């Protein structure tokens, strides 16, 4: 069956009333979560995973709901960037640079509309990229043997710090912590229990979902308790929207370039959306230096928004085809799929075309919904920004607890969840990033398994790790991903800082 045909079948799934409803709910919740300062897409998805479980949704519905949340959070992230100059998450940081100055000039509505359109273009183009690339990669995935997978996971870890990562050492600590947690439980290669101390609850290791919900959602609650942040935040007032076709055409090239760059950086494992929006912004600035970037150029809003939305869809490519997440949020989605007994990888395209293509089609539908939601209804989301968190956080905690309990029906897991919440709080306090912890937990066992398989197959000969062009290529990219940030990173970060320093407060 051709790709187009499969995609059409996907639309049949995505346009069913049930799927439409979940896409709409996901889009609204996602935008809301993305708009709240500090809550990014990874948190958003982490908070809503338990909801999907407690509602007993099918894998397809769950994934449609959560990818819509993901896409929505990418849209929503820009609202607080533009109105408050506080990025909702890391990828939305670049949007502050021109979005907030635009708002200060009395063009807040235009900035929001511009970013909504650019987000749409970014997601739309990248989803087309996903449609084209994913099936090719899924076929190609048969070429991945244990040694290739091992190289791929090494690549994912090597690029974890990323170019925008602040402190490589802290990233390393976080990843190591994740790897350590991952060693608990049965070792499938030998059938031996490790670090379980004869406690049944540890036999299958620590559940990713519990760790994710604890680290992201529950730690958020602790931060709230600490801050007593009862009040909404001061924000720039919203003017009446005046957007002409000419304005839209003006940002078109920047959006398309941003989308493509974002998609590529999203596909690279470990790099993710921050890199997408960052590269899109800097290149756009270089390319068209006659504009007034940093002082409220609409193209400076469009490029990074298209970039981070493009990267969001791009990151789904390695997640669906190889089972290797391209970003923190896809790591969370991957954990959920595994818990639903859906194994991402090349077989997913063979065995569950309904799910894969339904979700891809739902991304198209969801983005259209988001565009329609975001232009006329942006005022409502802006109002939601001023809801005091004291009403919000108890709901988050309730949803998280009920959901986790409904997965396994064990009170023990709730203790674990709270434990991870405390750990997440401590880690965030000392500025150790959380995403590498999750990636370490998810990828560690896979990496270990593949190394051991490769060595069993070669009867203990280590040269097997470099036995194909594919694995050599992956190792080269991994080495580049590890070394480049150390050289290029400080330069790029210095550049990134400069325009930001120039902003009025």
């Amino acid at each position, binding site marked *: 069956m051709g790709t187009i045909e499969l995609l059409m079948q996907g639309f049949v799934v995505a346009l069913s009333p049930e799927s439409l409803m979940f896409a709409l709910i996901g889009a609204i919740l996602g935008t809301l979560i993305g708009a709240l300062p500090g809550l990014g897409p990874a948190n958003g998805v982490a908070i809503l995973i338990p909801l999907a*479980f407690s509602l*007993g949704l099918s*894998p397809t519905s769950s994934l449609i709901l959560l990818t819509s949340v993901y896409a929505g959070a990418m849209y929503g992230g820009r609202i607080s960037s533009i109105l408050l100059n506080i990025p909702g998450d890391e990828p939305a940081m670049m949007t502050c640079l021109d979005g907030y100055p635009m708002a200060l000039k009395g063009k807040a509505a235009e900035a929001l509309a511009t970013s909504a359109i650019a987000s749409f273009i970014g997601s739309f183009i990248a989803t087309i990229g996903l449609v084209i690339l994913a099936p090719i990669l899924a076929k190609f*995935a*048969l*070429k*991945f*043997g*244990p040694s290739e997978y091992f190289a791929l996971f090494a690549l994912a870890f090597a690029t974890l710090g990323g170019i925008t990562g602040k402190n490589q050492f802290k990233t390393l600590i976080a990843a190591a912590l994740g790897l350590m947690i991952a060693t608990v439980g*049965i*070792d*499938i*290669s*030998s*059938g031996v*229990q490790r670090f379980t101390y*004869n406690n*049944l*609850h540890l*036999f*299958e290791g620590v*559940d990713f979902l519990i760790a994710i919900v604890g680290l992201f959602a529950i730690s958020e609650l602790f931060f709230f308790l600490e801050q007593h942040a009862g009040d909404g935040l001061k924000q720039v007032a919203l003017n009446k929207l005046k957007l002409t076709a000419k304005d839209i055409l003006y940002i078109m090239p920047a959006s398309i370039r941003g989308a493509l760059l974002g998609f590529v950086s999203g596909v690279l494992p470990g790099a993710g959306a921050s890199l997408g929006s960052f590269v899109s912004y800097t290149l756009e600035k270089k390319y068209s230096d006659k504009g007034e970037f940093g002082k409220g150029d609409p193209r400076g809003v469009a490029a990074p928004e298209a970039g981070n939305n493009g990267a969001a869809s791009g990151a789904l490519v390695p997640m669906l085809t190889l089972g290797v997440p391209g970003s923190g949020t896809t790591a969370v989605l991957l954990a959920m799929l595994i*818990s*639903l*007994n*859906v*194994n991402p*990888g*090349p*077989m997913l395209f*063979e*065995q569950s075309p309904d799910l894969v293509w339904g979700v891809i089609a739902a991304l198209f539908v969801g983005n259209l919904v988001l565009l329609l939601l975001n232009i006329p209804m942006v005022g409502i989301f802006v109002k939601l920004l001023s809801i005091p968190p004291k009403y919000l956080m108890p709901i988050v905690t309730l949803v998280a607890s009920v959901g986790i309990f*409904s*997965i*396994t*029906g*064990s009170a023990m897991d709730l203790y674990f969840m709270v434990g991870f919440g405390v750990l997440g709080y401590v880690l965030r306090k000392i500025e150790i990033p959380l995403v590498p912890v999750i990636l370490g937990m998810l990828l560690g066992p*896979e990496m270990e*398994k593949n190394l051991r*398989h490769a060595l*069993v*197959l070669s*009867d203990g000969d280590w040269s097997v790790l470099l036995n194909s062009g594919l694995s050599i290529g992956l190792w080269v990219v991994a080495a580049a991903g590890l070394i480049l940030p150390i050289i290029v990173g400080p330069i790029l970060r210095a550049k990134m800082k400069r325009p930001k320093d120039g902003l009025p407060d």
Partner: protein
Amino acid sequence: MLKTVSMKSVLVSGAAALTIAGQAYAYEPARSAECIAPANPGGGWDFTCRSVGKVLTDLDYIKGNVQTVNMAGAGGGVAFAHTVSKRTTDESLIVAASTATTTRLAQGQFPGMNADQVKWVGTLGADYGVIAVGKDSKYTSLKQMMDALKGNPGAVKFAGGSASGGWDHLKVLITAKEANVENLPKIRYLAFSGGSEALVQVVGGHVDAFTGDISEVKGFMDSGDLRVLAVLSEERLAKPFDQIPTALEQGISSVAPNWRGFYVPGDASQESYDWWVNTIDELYQTQEWKDVMVKNGLMPFKKSGEEFTQFVKNQTLDIQILSKDIGLIK
């Protein structure tokens, strides 16, 4: 957690079920029952609970509903421990089980627990083991492959979806043992997180052979990428699997059904146990259940009551011996 059933309070609903059962029992089922699926939603045990629960209520064996409770952990160990410690006399509780349960019991992976602590009700079908190779493999029969292993136990590398020592691994060992292959611990087995992951490695030509269940191979068998050398059942399976030879036909008496069934708490009354055994027996005969089996690729495999209890004991013992042979347990 749930209430223990008061027998008197359920006379009315019990009477209706008895008419269907057509036989008088001292035990009357509760208005509602609970089925523990010892894993997350979406897997085999979850399916067992949900499909049996649905047929039980559709056919009025249970008047109210059969609630499926997912209790994941330790490959069924958490649910087993829960049953033997907190629900010892609960007569409206059934727990889904399969070969994975007996394997773990045999290998002492439920510490301090054994198969005698619960009552084994019966099975409702099985998924049979297969051994398969990629389409470009040099092996065309199971016998050929086993002969190669006799020469060198490391000659063929197997990929499967269970941990080392798990059921997919054991299928290879059972077969090799029956074929008189010596030095079983030297047989190479690669553990993957699921059957589909293992299949991709075999189809992709990275690993020599696949060990798994018949329900896992249909896609790649139809596409011609996979050659199934043998199915580990007593007789050939029904269409569309009737072209696959059994191991028995090839002179290797290896039979490996991954059965799906239930146990109930060890101190549940004899009457309630008899009721469950009889109900599962009748359920197995109904058209509704036959439809469920066809739709989900379950093959016939029926044992219940005393016969099933004996089967579980034998299987546990066999697995124990095999696990000792390969040095997994002492």
